[in-house]
């Protein structure tokens, strides 16, 4: 049994409930045990680090310390949470003064040795694409998928280690293993506007619009993501963006665990595909996947 500390993050209990549900479902099936960090607090998201360096270090440190104590790799399905956990780890290592203050506030010591990985790396690298492949029930034949990684999962370069920061291949390899086709495109890591979802929507519309256009142009029928922020910008904002661009984009955006779920034989409601703004049902039916 493969065991990791799981930090779902705030979005996964609300706006991205379907990501949480699909992830837990798929992981159970694959026998990956997700041990939720008890009484976790928010990672500070995109706000803490622009307000106070210390807050940005202290909030994640609580979860990091817990995982370290229990000798587990800590993972998050949300790129923003992952980034905050990882950056906190890096900063606490890089800046000893910060570490001292954080430890004082928390009243605990932190060694910094524990591993922090994004869920994609836990599932696709540690558990392994090949192991997933061995358990598939279905091939997602004929489906053209654009893998969108976004900023926070791969940048800065120190966080993605084995993969290429400018042209990551982790999810693309998964797509091929599932029998689908990963399209070649160059906007994999462009920014979607992330945290400006509420405050600067016009920026989100432009950036996410560029990504959606590029995905469409590359022939993708579906976008696969691994972050609730990316998802809400590409999916929930898609109708507005379509209107703005005066083009019907209509390109479903699925979480990578939902895509794995499809290949494991789960259905529309199991994976909560009904929660998406752009309904993937017509596409998936046309391809004979649903």
């Amino acid at each position, binding site marked *: 049994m493969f065991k990791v500390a799981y930090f779902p993050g705030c979005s996964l209990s609300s706006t991205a409930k379907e990501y949480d549900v699909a992830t837990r479902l798929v992981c159970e099936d694959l026998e990956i045990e997700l041990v939720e960090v008890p009484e976790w607090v928010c990672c500070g998201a995109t706000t803490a680090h622009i307000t106070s360096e210390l807050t940005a270090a202290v909030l994640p440190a609580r979860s990091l310390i817990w995982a370290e104590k229990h000798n587990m790799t800590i993972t998050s399905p949300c790129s923003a949470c992952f980034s905050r956990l990882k950056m906190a780890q890096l900063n606490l290592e890089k800046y000893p003064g910060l570490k001292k203050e954080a430890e004082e506030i928390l009243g605990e010591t932190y060694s910094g040795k524990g591993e922090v990985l994004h869920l994609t790396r836990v599932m696709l690298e540690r558990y392994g694409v090949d192991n997933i492949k061995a358990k598939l029930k279905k091939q997602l034949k004929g489906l053209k998928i654009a893998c969108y990684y976004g900023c926070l999962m791969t940048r800065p370069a120190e966080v993605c280690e084995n993969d290429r*920061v*400018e*042209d990551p291949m982790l999810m693309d390899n998964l797509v091929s293993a599932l029998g689908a086709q990963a399209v*070649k495109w*160059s906007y994999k890591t462009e920014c979607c506007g992330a945290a400006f979802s509420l405050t600067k929507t016009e920026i989100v519309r432009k950036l996410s619009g560029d990504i959606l256009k*590029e995905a469409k*142009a590359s022939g993708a029928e579906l976008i696969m993501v691994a972050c609730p922020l990316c998802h809400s910008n590409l999916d929930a904002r898609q109708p507005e963006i379509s209107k703005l661009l005066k083009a019907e984009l209509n390109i479903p955006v699925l979480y990578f665990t939902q895509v794995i779920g499809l290949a494991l034989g789960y259905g529309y409601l199991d994976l909560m595909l009904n929660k998406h703004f752009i309904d993937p049902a017509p596409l998936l039916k046309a391809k004979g996947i649903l």
Partner: protein
Amino acid sequence: MARIGVFVCHCGTNIAGVVDVTRVAKYAGSLPGVKVAVDYKFMCSDPGQNTIIDAIKKYGLDRLVVSACSPRMHEATFRRTAERAGINPYMVEMANIREHVAWVHSDDKELATQKAMKLMEMAVAKVRRSEALSKMFAPIEKRALVIGGGIAGIQAALDIAGAGYKVLLVEKEPSIGGRMAQLDKTFPTLDCSACILTPKMVAAAQDPNITLLTYAEVTEVCGFVGQFEVKIKKKAKSVNSKCIGCGVCTTKCPSKKALSEFDEKLAPRKAIYTPFPQAVPNVPVIDRTACTFFLTGKCKICEKVCPTGAIDYTQQDEFIKEKFGAVVVATGFDIYDHSNYGEYGYGEIKDVITGLQFERLISSTGPTAGHVTRPSDHREVKNVVFIQCVGSRDEAKKRPYCSRVCCMYTAKQAMLLKDHYPETQAYVFYIDIRSAGKNYEEFVQRAQNEYGVLYLRGRVSKIYERANKLLVKGADTLSGAQVEIEADLVVLANGFEPKKGAKEFAQLFHMSSDQYGFYNELHPKLAPVETAISGVFVAGCCQSPKDIPDTVAMASATAAKVCALFAKEKLEVEPLIAGVNQLTCSGCETCYNVCPYSAIEMKDKEVKRGEVRHVAEVLESVCKGCGACVGACYSKAVDLKGFTDRQVLDQVETATAPITDN
């Protein structure tokens, strides 16, 4: 009793700005044996040296201490000064109070002054124990080895041969010519590279004083200036000396698997090949990793078609060992491999090419016969983006230095493009334009003003592939604008790197290299073509990135140095060598075993009347004075002149004693 003079130098303000030189001189005057101690502005200047000579005469001095710069800088100067005044030149010691004090302890003048006093005192302690040594001479093998047949090596060989000395020119590729042979036209005059290089290549081949050895590499070196012994591997060409260079074999060879190194992998080449048509010598070689016969045992077509029976599949690598008096290293450079630039596509985008590939594309002898088309789909190009400083001036890529040539070659390439295709547009992204050279700035101006090349000041952030185009996203920091260009072709100005294997090569000669692998010159200003190994000189891009004019100037300079060396009857060598006290030698052979130069002989000798013993003896002409034997001898029977045990121990004792200045 020794009569010592101490001379303390100001070096302008270099030393005097930090060290209280008068206090140093005053302290010197108080030391036993010191008859005179003075300070002076510039000790190495003529009046400075005359001060010393006058003092020697006036005070009857027999040994000197010069407290100034590093002995590596001026020890030879002051030895000559002593000699002129009639003192044995080995009765001179220097205290290094510039490099080892003033320049490194400028943050505390008091401590610096105290240290300067101490170092001077240590030198006085050492010189007290100095002995007069007599000059030694060694023979010179008047034959030069030039390694690397690029323009640097060719020029050096021609100049040395021109002075009447024999030269062996060793090149590891099948032909000489180096990078310059790959270039189309050359800045700043835009004359054709082949037109000016080919005559030189031919001249080198025909010069009776030059022996060409291509497809060969140096594998071992021992010896020293005047007497280098070098082992060279002649790689099996599989073609013997009967070849007349008709080229039939190459035409008929069916194997096209290998990619042409000369054409920067833009075109295939045959298994039996010369790198390019004007190759010198014009003898093909078989690349055994690509030849069907060597891979499968079948084919032998070349053997069948060869009119002279020159093909020899059984040829073996051959080793030769020869002696040389001097060596010129001219092994050139490689260009930076941009597969480290993820933002420019990890080297995987076919239409993002290197500057060197562009030279091949636009050259009429190149794979496209001079048509600039896209490697991916062979379409003609309209918009071409040039990006400068790729793999240069980039700390994140571990290449912080400027490659010095790429600004110029980019301007050249943009102009050549416009010349060939007036309807194209060239864009150049740059950070700074570095065009210091005769007519260089004017050249770049011409690219901008007459050719309409658009220069944009900023680094490119990313290249996107979109449909059939490359979307180049850069900035123009002068206008504060983000810039997006849809390009057909992107040409990178890849920086210069040391040749692959440069570090291992350096070890053959014990040359030192900088942190990147470029070979170090002895002094950046005053000895730019010498290395720390006497008799070994460097020319061209193996020392640092440079263009052809600088390369040629440097090559001729090495030739002048080699000729100056060969013009001497014999070589004066420092007599700082080991000597055995055979009375105490126990004959254990330890020294015999450690000496790296086999300079120790064991002999049965009558050391005292009637007592014949097995003892060590130093071969004076062979010993290099490394001192390994001295460190190893258990009986303290060997000592090293100039660095005797007594001298070093006195220095140690002085170093640890307090300063008694008041």
